[in-house]
């Protein structure tokens, strides 16, 4: 694998750094100004357009958005598994302080597994159907950690117990199709954990599961995080799910982060009209609203997004200054951030909602 001359030296240095780095950085993952472009017949799709976030050690960050918000692409860009028509146009992805983009492919492969791994939405397509489950879990430790077969098997059985797969000795030799959906997801979690990564990226891991199984998997993830201190980036469209798993949440819309902060704070006191719209439009199992408030309009074009705030065509509070220029993500106090110029209106609207509700009950 030959590299062009000029990039050799800095790349070698980066590789060295990556492999020998002590865990000094308080943030295990830092993403800065990430931009992902996809080439398509109709033009260049700006799937991820300037996304930045940090994930502190041991914490879980939720990435919430609907389809087309760019949340899955963000994860794939972090891990470096973008589809062929997509490429990372700019930005930095720093794992333990080292920029992953500057690493060579071989070093990147050695990083994936021991430091960072991923679990996916559809366990059946993420697991190799013709390979025994135990083998798939032990693969990581054998290759990345240099374990002998015996030691890897022992570790696999231990992992299977940790993720709650009953009768691991017998299940070790089973194939993925012999497992139920929830069990397969546990296998995927075991694989993700197998090399003791510092951070696991989760791409809608429970969306395809029944609610009782989802409950089990979510609690498992929370427990594993607490026990081993592994961080999570959890992508989902389901607000209550992110409330259950994560401490921090970033809401994505049109390829950008529009709001960020402590998860309960953001969901109960949103400071961006899109977040407010999401919360209002979802029926809640706790109480009955007379009418749900859908968000009018349609998601923005990612090829030619609207000027100014990307949400303004659908926003009840839009004013003139929302329609032009670029709107940056501004930091508020209490660890919150928002891309809305008039975020106080959200608080007012919520108060009005609650007053109206109080009147009818």
């Amino acid at each position, binding site marked *: 694998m030959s590299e062009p001359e000029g990039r050799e030296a800095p790349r070698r240095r980066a590789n060295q750094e990556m492999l020998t780095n002590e865990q000094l950085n308080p943030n295990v993952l830092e993403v800065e100004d990430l931009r992902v472009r996809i080439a*398509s017949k*109709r033009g260049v*799709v700006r799937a991820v357009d300037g996304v930045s976030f940090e994930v502190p050690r041991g914490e879980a960050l939720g990435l919430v958005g609907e*389809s*087309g918000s760019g949340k899955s692409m963000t994860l794939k860009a972090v891990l470096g598994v973008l589809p062929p*028509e997509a490429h990372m146009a700019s930005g930095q992805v720093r794992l333990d302080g080292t920029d992953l983009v500057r690493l060579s492919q071989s070093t990147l492969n050695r990083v994936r597994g021991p430091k960072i791994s991923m679990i996916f939405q559809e366990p059946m397509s993420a697991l190799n159907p013709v390979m025994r489950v135990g083998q798939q879990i032990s693969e990581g430790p054998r290759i990345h950690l240099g374990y002998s077969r015996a030691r890897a098997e022992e570790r696999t059985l231990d992992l299977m117990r940790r993720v709650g797969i009953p009768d691991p000795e017998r299940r070790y030799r089973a194939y993925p199709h012999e497992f139920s959906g929830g069990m397969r997801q546990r296998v995927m979690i075991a694989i993700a954990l197998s090399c003791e990564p510092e951070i696991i990226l989760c791409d809608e891991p429970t969306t395809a599961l029944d609610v009782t199984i989802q409950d089990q998997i979510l609690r498992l993830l929370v427990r594993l995080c607490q026990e081993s201190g592994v961080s999570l980036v959890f992508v989902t469209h389901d607000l209550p799910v992110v409330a259950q798993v994560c401490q921090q949440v970033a809401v994505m819309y049109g390829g950008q982060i529009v709001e960020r902060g402590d998860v309960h704070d953001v969901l109960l006191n949103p400071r961006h009209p899109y977040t407010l719209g999401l919360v209002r439009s979802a029926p809640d199992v706790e109480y009955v609203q007379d009418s749900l408030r*859908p968000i*009018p*309009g*349609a*998601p923005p*074009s990612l090829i030619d997004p609207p000027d100014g705030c990307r949400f303004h065509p659908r926003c009840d509070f839009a004013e003139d200054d929302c329609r032009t220029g670029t709107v940056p993500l501004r930091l508020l106090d209490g660890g919150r951030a928002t891309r809305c110029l008039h975020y106080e209106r959200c608080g007012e609207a919520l108060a009005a909602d609650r007053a109206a509700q109080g009147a009818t009950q």
Partner: protein
Amino acid sequence: MSTVSLPTGTEPGPGAPVVPSAAGRRVGRRWYRQPALMSGLVIIGLIIIAAVAAPLLTSYNPTTQNLTASLLGPSAHHLLGTDQLGRDTFTRLLYGLRVDLRIAFIAVLFPFVLGTVLGSLAGYFGGWVDVIVMRLVDIVVAFPFYVLVIALVFVLGPGERSIYIAITIVGWVSYARIVRGEILVAKRQEYVLAAQSGGLSSLRIMGRHLLPNVISQAFIYAMSDIVQDILAIVTLGYFGLGVPPPTADLGSMINDGQNFLSTHWQLTTIPGLAVVLVGLGLSLIGDGLADILRPGQS
């Protein structure tokens, strides 16, 4: 009837750009940009024009014999020379193409229709209809294509009508299988369930809802089937089982000419090349159509 008042501005009208989901629906590639399809159409187009314009392109009669002008080489009067009975080869080529193309295009129609109908019934209704049709398919398929066609024509006597009958009896099975397979899948689609729920008759569902969505596969197959039919017709002609002489026919021309291969190679080779060219053109069209009609990959 009072209309329910709904919030305005919820979601754009149908003309607005749809979120790029596409979800596997067909990608309508511009058909004229498809190289295979275009080259195929050009080839076949030219051949058809030549065949149709035959009386304009040549003044000779394809069947008139002129024994004094037999076995002449290519010249200004006879572009491809003459055969052993003094008939102009070029003329016979064009008229032969006419005959064979016409027979082929008609011959592909009957198996298409018969096979599609039987395949639809088998696929949609299942049960004993399916069993019977599939067993018939098994019987026909057990015989090699040419063996059966030649045997049937032999029994029915040579001539155009026999060709149609023979090809229909042998050729319907492929269409039946293809259509049956497509229908088996398509009938589970929810829009079919919706049509059933709407109380539409089975015939209507098959004809209006299912067939238009599955016919493209049969159509693509028809393209390669025409090639096979042309070859069959030429082969039958070669064996003297096709259109009876003196009608010009590519197969019989090849047969007649092979005695003079060493001296007048064009008598047998040129008709052969014509067959190859037609086959090539039709295959290209089939390829191009398959690319367009199949649900696109990005």
